[in-house]
């Protein structure tokens, strides 16, 4: 592996909104880009990479308009993943390892207020066996929730506890939504209730990565990426063990997930946090989703990137020495990315 060390040196996100405020995706993103440029003092970056999804916007090429927010002139070295922007960060990290460039801008954005995201997610499913059933993301998640609860012998109160903690944490985070303690919500799709589901959210986020001395120059306490890895498992929910996450386990192992103090998990449903804690070996001593996590703000396509940003922010402000950011993609945690960050500079 390359000797280049890469760090998260800046993280900016919108104050996420639970309803459409009338801003386009580009308008949501532009102030975030402006702020992160101000914060780093950089006007141009060695590489730029973003994550977004056409189906969220209901039209092709959603990333093209977003380029207007970046200031891509003169032309920039740029790429895009049709995935959560955490994978854009992965692509940028790989690029920085080459050593040709030493800074990268990564961003993601999404507005779930514009559509019914659980229904949009139907279009991600196997087009022969699953999508024709009209199966939505909430229904699929509920299948996994029951599989997990029954496998570990837990009850639904375990889910409620996750929601209560996430929402309480979210209320202390100015960027997250202000959601009340879980009430007696009816089942959305049993065994999941309303509070077990992610809230509708509009938002955007950006991260700047830098390598080596450039990172030290741009940030007082860079959050060094000591390990980052992502893994997938088979798509068909009937061809894998839904009760746990083998792909998260492997990614955590490869990224060196042990010994973290803080973990920001891309758990969009309450049970996913339980599955991920187990897969990543996070004990009770680990502070999980102090930001509130996706259950308190879920600007899809940026949600995973925000996890890495929040984890890095804990390193930046000195509250953690070693933190973990996690991102997921696909139905029922099919893909998982783990990024381990450290305040210790071994450069």
């Amino acid at each position, binding site marked *: 592996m390359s000797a280049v060390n890469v760090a998260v040196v800046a993280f900016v996100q919108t104050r996420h909104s639970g309803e459409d405020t009338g801003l386009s995706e580009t308008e949501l993103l532009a102030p975030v880009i402006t702020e992160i440029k101000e914060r780093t003092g950089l006007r141009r970056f060695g590489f730029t990479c973003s994550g977004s999804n*056409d189906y969220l916007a209901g039209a*092709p090429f959603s990333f093209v308009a977003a380029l*207007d927010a970046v200031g891509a002139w*003169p032309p920039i*070295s740029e*790429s895009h993943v049709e995935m959560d922007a955490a994978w854009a960060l992965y692509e940028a990290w790989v690029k920085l390892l080459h050593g040709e460039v030493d800074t990268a801008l990564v961003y993601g954005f999404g507005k779930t207020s514009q559509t019914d995201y659980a229904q949009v997610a139907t279009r*991600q499913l196997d087009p022969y066996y699953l999508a024709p059933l009209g199966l939505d993301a909430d229904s699929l998640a509920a299948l996994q929730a029951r599989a997990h609860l029954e496998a570990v012998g837990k009850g639904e109160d375990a889910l409620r506890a996750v929601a209560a903690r996430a929402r309480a944490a979210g209320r202390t985070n100015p960027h997250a939504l202000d959601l009340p303690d879980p009430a007696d919500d009816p089942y959305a799709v049993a065994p999941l209730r309303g509070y077990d589901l992610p809230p509708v959210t509009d938002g955007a986020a950006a991260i700047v990565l830098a390598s080596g001395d450039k990172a030290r120059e741009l940030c007082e306490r860079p959050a060094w990426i000591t390990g980052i890895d992502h893994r997938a498992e088979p798509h068909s929910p009937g061809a894998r063990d839904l009760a746990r996450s083998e792909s998260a386990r492997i990614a955590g192992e490869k990224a060196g997930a042990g010994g973290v103090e803080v973990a920001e998990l891309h758990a969009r449903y309450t049970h996913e946090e339980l599955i991920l804690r187990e897969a990543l070996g996070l004990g009770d001593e680990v502070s999980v989703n102090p930001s509130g996590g996706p259950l308190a703000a879920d600007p899809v396509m940026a949600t995973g990137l925000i996890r890495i940003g929040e984890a890095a922010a804990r390193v930046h402000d000195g509250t953690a020495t070693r933190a973990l950011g996690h991102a997921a993609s696909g139905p029922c945690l099919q893909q998982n990315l783990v990024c381990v960050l450290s305040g210790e500079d071994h450069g």
Partner: protein
Amino acid sequence: MAEPCAIIGVGQTAYRTRRPDASMAGLLREAARRALDDAGLTWKDIDAVVIGKAPDLFEGVTMPEAYLADALGAAGKPIMRVHTAGSVGGSTAIVAAGLVQSGVHDRVLTVAWEKQSESNATWALTVNTPFTTSLVVGAGGYFAPHIRAYMRRSGAPDHIGTLVAVKDRENALKNQYAHLKIPGISREMVESTPMLWEPIRYLETCPSSDGACAMVLASSDAARSAPNPPAWVHGTAMRSEPIFFAGRDTVNPRGGIDCAADVYRQAGITDPRAELDCAEVYVPFSWYEPMWLENLGFCGEGEGWKLTESGATALDGDIPWNPSGGVLSSNPIGASGMIRFAEAALQVRGMAGEHQVDGARRALGHAYGGGAQFFAMWIVGSDRP
């Protein structure tokens, strides 16, 4: 500082209007398996998978890396999906190469595809939201005005586009995978077809294809045991610019110029026409050959059409462009860029078959997309850099 990256496997499907015999996964696996066979590897030997395609609306499966993960042998492995509009086939290959160059992985499978028969390309490319101000329908409607601007600016005679249309289709007759095979293709035949978007005639446009293209990329160590000669990556570059802004040159976009300059610098090339042996360049409308000849520095501005007219870009010319028949002969949009990159690799490996350029040792693969605003390029060579 980057590790060397070799292309040790290339696989393509036959490109057809419709592949009714293949599922989406089946189509990708057909290309991937041929690439694995070429590399002498099996699914389990692969460390990571990078896929790419144009908008998800084409097949109506969004973020399809989820559905395709295990179909591409990625259970327990990393898989990611790149999307940079029409340049995506090229940028996907570049992202995959990056995984090797950075030392993260030793063997990476990359696949790009489109199965356009599942819907309709014009629809998928121009779904308009209520707030879209564009009245354009389809790619031809967008690019025809730029072509007209080029003709005006360069003073090129009307028949240049026809020459490219004929040359690329003649090359396609030598390519077993090509979609459009028109025996006896001639200027008269092209000129007898209707104007679709004036000045673009029907046979001056690309077809709409189903198809997939795959490559296996490998580190030096992994390349050592490859059964066939590798191609080596000598440089990769991507550039993007906004689609609409005051003062933008849409005929000769700066993104293309800068991208070419970057990739030439990496490969140590100062005179591409002289130092490259052939090029696979994204030419979806015949007039883009002379336009890109200038944009990529194969000649001076306003001179591109003369190069085409002189036959320099023909298979037996001094700098053959699109010996495979190019995008004009096969166009599964999301794969078209990767086909350019893969064909460039086949040329320098000496494995291009009937359309092999004799003695090719260095070649350019090129892709562009969006409103001629996204560019991806690589240069590959027979020699390890």
